[in-house]
Structures are given as C-alpha cells and as structure tokens.
C-alpha cells in the first residue's frame, strides 16, 4: 500500500527546561490514512502535535505538509496548509453559538459585515456530508460533550482541512460515541482526508487505525501496520515492559457492609436514581457498569455521603439511615475515590502532605489542640509515597504537578492506608494509562483480599469484568438484578448497559 505522503515530520526535538519531551522524532502520514499515535501519558504525543500545529516552536527539526515546509510557531500557517487540530480540552466558547465558534478567524478582521448566512449554509452542508449533526445557532454550552467534539471537527473541516489531528478524542466520550466517532473518521479518510489520532487506549487503536506509531519517553520506539500487530505487543512497546493486569482469585464473601433498599434520588422532578437495590459484602467487589450519565454521579454522591436518599434506606454495617455524613463515613472506615480526581479528589494547589491528611486531619496523630503536627503529616505522606509508588513526588510537591496516574495512586493510597472496610471507587482508572491501570487494579484487589467491601462504579467493560465478583448495570437511574461473575460475558453485560435485562425485580 503506497500512499502519497501528505505530511512529514523530520527530526523534531523539543524540551521544556530539563525535560526532553520530544527527542528526534520523525514520522510521515499518507493520503487517506488513519494513523494512531500511541503512548502513555507523558510520552510526548501532545507536545509533538502542538509542534506540528505551531503552538510550540521546536528546538530542532521541521514539518512539511503537501511538500511545503511550514514556518515554525505559526498556527495560522498550519491552518492555511490544510491542517486542522481538535484539542483534548476543547477550545470552544460556551456562551457563543456553534456558528460563532466555527467562524472565528475565518474572515478578515477589517470586514464591515460578516457573512453569517453563507457561513451557516456551508456549515450545514459540511455537517450533512460527514454525518456530524449540529445546529449552527445553538449555544455551545447547551451541547453534550460528543456534540462539542463534532463542533471542533467541523471547525477544522470548515477551514478546508485535509489533515485532521485529534488529541485523545475518546477521553471524554462514551463507548458508543467513540464508536460513532471512528466511523465518521473512517468516512473522512475514504474521501481522501488524512487523520492522526492520539491515544493510549489499545482497544481503539487496534480497532480503528491503519498504522500505529508508538512513542515512549519522547522517542519513537516502533511503527507498525495495525494488521501486523496485536494488543499485547503494543502494550509492551508502549510501556517498555510486559504489563500484566492482575487477576482476581476466588474468595468467599463475608458479612454485609453496605446495602441500599429501594432508594430514589429526585432532582427537579426527575428521578436520578429510581428504586435501586444493591448489597456489597466484605471481601467482595460489586461492579456497577453503565454508560456515563445514567445516574452514576448520584450514586457516587449517595454512597460518599454528599447527598441523602429521598426515599428508601441505606444500611451501613448495621446502621440504617437515608444517608450518612462524609465525616461519619470516614471515621467508620470508608475509602472514597471520587469520579473527578482533579476537582473532588485532590486540591491541586496544595502540597501532597496536605492532601494526604485532608480527610483525617482531626485524628490525634495529625493535629492536637487546633495545631497541625506537620512533621507527622509529612512522615505519613512519605509513607504513602513509598508504599504506593507515587512517582515524581515528595511530601511538599504541589499535587497538581503529579501525572493523572500518580495523583490517583495518592488518592488510593490515603484511602487504603487505613485498611478501610468499604471502598467507593468511582471511575478509578478513567484517563489513566496501561501501567497505572494495572497498579490501581492490583491495589483494589489487594484491599479486597484484606476483606474490604468495594463498590466499583465504572464505564469500562473490561475493568468491570476483570475485577467484579458481582455485576449490576445502571441505566436511566435503575439498577439491574445482580449477575455473578461466572455468568457474565461481554455480550450479556453489553446488553445490560443498554438497559436490556430481565426485569426479575419490579422497579
């Protein structure tokens, strides 16, 4: 398969201070090709694409598109050369309309009147041609994440992009949205566009790409035709060593730790949770699987003590109530891993030691008579760093400087160090790379072995199947009947995620 080369990166190097983000990277992209750029967090993927698009100026090397060398550090030149970029964090303005967001920068600033009518027509034409439905006059803030991404893609197409770069496009999408996205991208490459997508997810790289370039530590370590490789090989190339996800071993569950009976949570007349029942026992992992937005947030808030049940009851280790306070949960031994580690799990601006003791600062060893015992807090943080292998960290490191995986290890660590009897893990591996996922899974399984009851809320099918003893699906606020691990396969559970289950328990 010899394709005409549309884009060539030659010997790109880029460093930030002492950190070498890109070290002599070269790659080419063919016309109509779907190329995956695979690597762990921090491998230099995003830096490379930002150099290519002109957000960064490289220390060395050059970029050429369609045979022309691009001037470095000029996004405008990249756009004019037909390159479009969809950033991981969308560059959209929520208070403005889709049309505004698409049109920005496409007209000369001196024009006395912008051609909004023609622009709307062109946008509608494009969205029809590529199957990317959006309403030009809708406000971006009102759109779903998937729709926002469509706007970003349309933005690039509107500028006649021939080469499309997507930075971790599926990080924010549900599984179904992700599949639709790759279908759309495939449709684009069929019409001669070329696409690079950045990813650390092996499954989607295997499923969607023609060719894959693997980056590790700022260098290209391999380049493979997707049809000539397999998942295990890619995983090893990406991480640099063999990664084995830990395996669950059978063990008999103990007493009931947390159960919910007919719990409703109602907001603005809408039932976020609708008569849910579940029980988690000691030494057992209950996996709640579902596409995000089906009530997981409310379930997480309920079990973490952030809101109470409107009807129904919770029973926690023999105590019955319609909800428990966060303080009560922590003091009675609950570990909580919130859905969004950046906003709920940790305070990025504060030091690691401060985050480490945050939940238990009232304990005698950390504070007495209103004074914080900093030495003991720091010792505790050091202990966590050693025991949970938190890399790039000292007790006084600002928490925001940690990578996602290491921040998650810190959150896990501060919860597991106290040997909790209950762990609420809400999307514990979202956005993490292979190595970090394996570490988190190992820790959760170790806690299970020590007798903790674990409520795992996740949208990752592989994760739930690998870890759970019992699985329940969540769909539109309702929970399916429990399914034991032996009876679960990805097909059955996949159907359950779509709300198709035998209604043995009337809701």
């Amino acid at each position, binding site marked *: 398969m010899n394709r005409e080369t549309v884009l060539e990166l030659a010997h790109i190097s880029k460093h930030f201070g002492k950190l070498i983000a890109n070290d002599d990277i070269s790659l080419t992209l063919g016309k109509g090709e779907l190329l995956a750029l695979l690597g762990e967090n921090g491998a230099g993927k995003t830096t490379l694409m930002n150099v290519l698009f002109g*957000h*960064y100026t490289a220390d060395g090397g050059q970029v050429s598109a369609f045979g022309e060398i691009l001037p470095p550090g*000029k*996004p*405008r*030149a990249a*756009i004019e050369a037909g390159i479009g*970029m969809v*950033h991981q*964090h969308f*560059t*959209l*303005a*929520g*208070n*403005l309309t889709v049309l*505004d*967001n698409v*049109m*920005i*920068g*496409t*007209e*000369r*600033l*001196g*024009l*006395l*009147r*912008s051609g*909004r009518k023609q622009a709307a027509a062109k946008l509608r034409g494009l969205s029809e041609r590529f199957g990317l439905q959006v309403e030009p006059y809708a406000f971006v803030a009102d759109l779903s994440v998937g729709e926002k991404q469509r706007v970003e893609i349309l*933005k690039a197409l509107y500028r006649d992009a021939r080469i499309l770069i997507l930075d971790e496009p599926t990080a924010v999408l549900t599984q179904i949205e992700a599949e639709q996205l790759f279908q759309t991208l495939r449709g684009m490459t069929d019409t001669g566009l070329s696409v690079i997508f950045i990813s650390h997810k092996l499954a989607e790289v295997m499923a969607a790409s023609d060719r894959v370039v693997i980056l590790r530590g700022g260098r290209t370590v391999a380049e493979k035709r997707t049809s000539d490789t397999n998942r295990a090989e890619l995983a090893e190339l990406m991480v640099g060593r063999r990664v084995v996800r830990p395996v669950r071993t059978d063990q008999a569950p103990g007493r009931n730790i947390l159960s919910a009976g007919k719990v409703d949570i109602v907001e603005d007349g809408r039932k976020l949770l609708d008569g849910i029942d579940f029980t988690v026992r000691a030494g057992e992992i209950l996996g709640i699987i579902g596409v995000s937005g089906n009530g997981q947030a409310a379930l997480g808030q309920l079990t973490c003590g952030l809101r109470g049940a409107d009807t129904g009851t919770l029973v926690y280790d023999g105590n019955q109530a319609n909800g428990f306070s966060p303080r009560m949960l922590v003091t009675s031994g609950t570990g909580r891993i919130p859905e969004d580690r950046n906003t709920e799990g940790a305070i990025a601006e504060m030091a690691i030691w401060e985050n480490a003791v945050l939940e238990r600062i009232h304990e005698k060893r950390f504070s007495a008579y209103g004074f914080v015992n900093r030495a003991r807090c720091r010792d505790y943080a050091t202990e966590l760093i050693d025991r949970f292998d938190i890399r790039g960290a000292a007790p006084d490191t600002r928490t925001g400087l940690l990578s996602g995986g290491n921040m998650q290890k810190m959150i896990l660590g501060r919860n597991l160090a106290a040997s909790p009897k209950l762990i609420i893990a809400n999307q514990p591996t979202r956005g993490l790379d292979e190595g970090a996922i394996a570490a988190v899974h190992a820790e959760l399984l170790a806690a299970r072995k020590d007798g903790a009851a674990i409520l795992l809320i996740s949208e990752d099918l592989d994760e739930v199947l690998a870890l759970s003893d019992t699985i329940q699906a969540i769909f539109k606020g309702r929970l399916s009947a429990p399914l034991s691990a032996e009876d679960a396969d990805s097909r059955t559970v996949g159907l359950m995620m779509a709300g198709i289950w035998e209604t043995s328990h009337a809701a």
Partner: protein
Amino acid sequence: MEALDIFATASLWSAVLRIATPLIFGTLGALICERAGVLNLGIEGIMTLGAMVAWMTVYQGGNLWMGLLVAALCGGLFGLLHALLTVPLGLSQHVTGLGITLFASSLTYYVYRLSLPVTSSPPTIEPFQPLAIPGLSDIPFFGEAFFTQTAPTYLALFAVLLTAYLLARTPLGLAIRMTGENPHAVEAQGLNPVRIRIGAIVAGSALMALGGAFLTTATFNSFFPTMVQGRGWVCIALVVFASWRPGKALLGALLFALFDAYQLRLQHVIESAIPYQLFLMVPYVLSIVALVVMSRRAKVPQALMAPYRKGER
C-alpha cells in the same frame, strides 16, 4: 400627587438623557474591555482625567470637539498602560485598575493645580449648546424632552448602535467576544488574543474619557476635582446589569439617570420633610436592586479577569 406630576414634565426627560450621557460612554467603554476579558477599574480615574483634559484644551483656546478628541487620546493612553500591565504581563486586573484610577485622578489634580492659580470660583469655558434637531424638535413634549440635546449626547446614542453592530455583526466583534470567552480558541485559529485585548482596552478607555469630558464640556462649564463622583463605579455595575450587552447598557444608563433626575426634582416637592441625602441615595439603592434582579441570568464572559499566557491552559 405632585410627586407623580414630575414624570409629565419634559424637563425631567431632557435631564435623563443629559445625565445618562457620561454613563453611556463609560458603560460602553467598560463593556468593550470586559467583552475582551479584561476588567478596567481604571474607569473612575480615566473619566476624571478626560473631564480635566477636555476642559483644559478648550480653556487654552481649542474648540470643543478638539477637547473631546484630546480627552479620548489621553484616555486611550491610560488604557494602553492598563493593557500593558494586565495583558502581556498578566498582573492582577483589580489591583492594576485601582492603581490606574489613583494615578490618573492624582495626576489630573496635580496638572490642574499646577496650571491654574487657586481661586474661589473655578474658571469657566463656553460649553456645548443644545442642538435642536430640525423637524423632530418641534414635536410637542417629545421634541423638548429628547431632540434638544447637546451634540455629544447624540454621539453617545450613536456609539451604542455602533458598538452593538460591531460586536454582533463583524468579524472583529466576534474576535473580541471570543477573546473574552476563550482566548485559547482565538489563538488556535491563528489570531492574536493579546493584540485584540490591548486594542479593546485602548478603545474602551477612550470612550470612558469621553464620558468624563462630557461633564466639563456639556453638563457643567468648569472642572472641579470631585466631579466624577463615582460615576465610573456605577458604569462597572451597569455592565453587569446589562449582561454585557450594549442595548441593555443604554437601558441601564437611562434607568439610573431617571432615578437621579427624579430624586433631584422630588427634593423640591417634598422640601425639608426628609433629609435630602436620603434622596441622593435613591438611585444607588435602586441600582443595587435592579442589579440583583437583572444579573442573576447574566452570561459572564468566561475568561473575564483570567490572564492569557500563550501555551498555557
């Protein structure tokens, strides 16, 4: 009901437009800055500066329009100072703005005192005279109320239209709005958000200075140091009241001016039964009430007060 009869007098409505004019200029100026994402608390000082500079230009023999022009230029210059400190250097917009206000006000008094000897009554100039619009000004009541204003008032109304059109209908306006919402989005499309912000602040500050200049060239005929009297701060509040929209800004300025004009006349009707300071308070209290009611649904520019640095998120 004498208190209600006030509303039927053409002089009330004529006064409303006159009182509103500096507020319209100031609010538009602050609005343009904020739409681009920068709060400009230098407004109070820039208005004071504009008032003095315009007056001084005319006093030294320039004509009235020359006075306005020089005021706008000086306002723009102080805007540029605010812009350089807050945009490329990314300093706190609150602190810089208050600093600009203190600096501009003090410099104004200093220059004024330096150029003129202390006298018991300040020297005067010949201000703008009401300009009757042919035809329209002959309409009974409305003619006197709305079409017999000074030229800068018409200019202010025109500026509202122009600003509204610029923001909503031109590529430059979209670039300004987008810079206030998400400067990274602007940069990603090859425009320079730093230049857009600086430009917006300079233009906005020039408008603020015109607001101040109106006080000395149309409302009064002399300059005195305390004449701006917090009008700048009222403008900052009016921007919020207006949800960052020029049309609503005009409405807000008129409403505030109505309260103000009304209380002045009410003082004469009610005489000394109530201390007059209470009436002075009325427009401000009502503004706060209106602000609370109106701004709850306001769409704040998302990048307002967030410094932009290239390559950072």
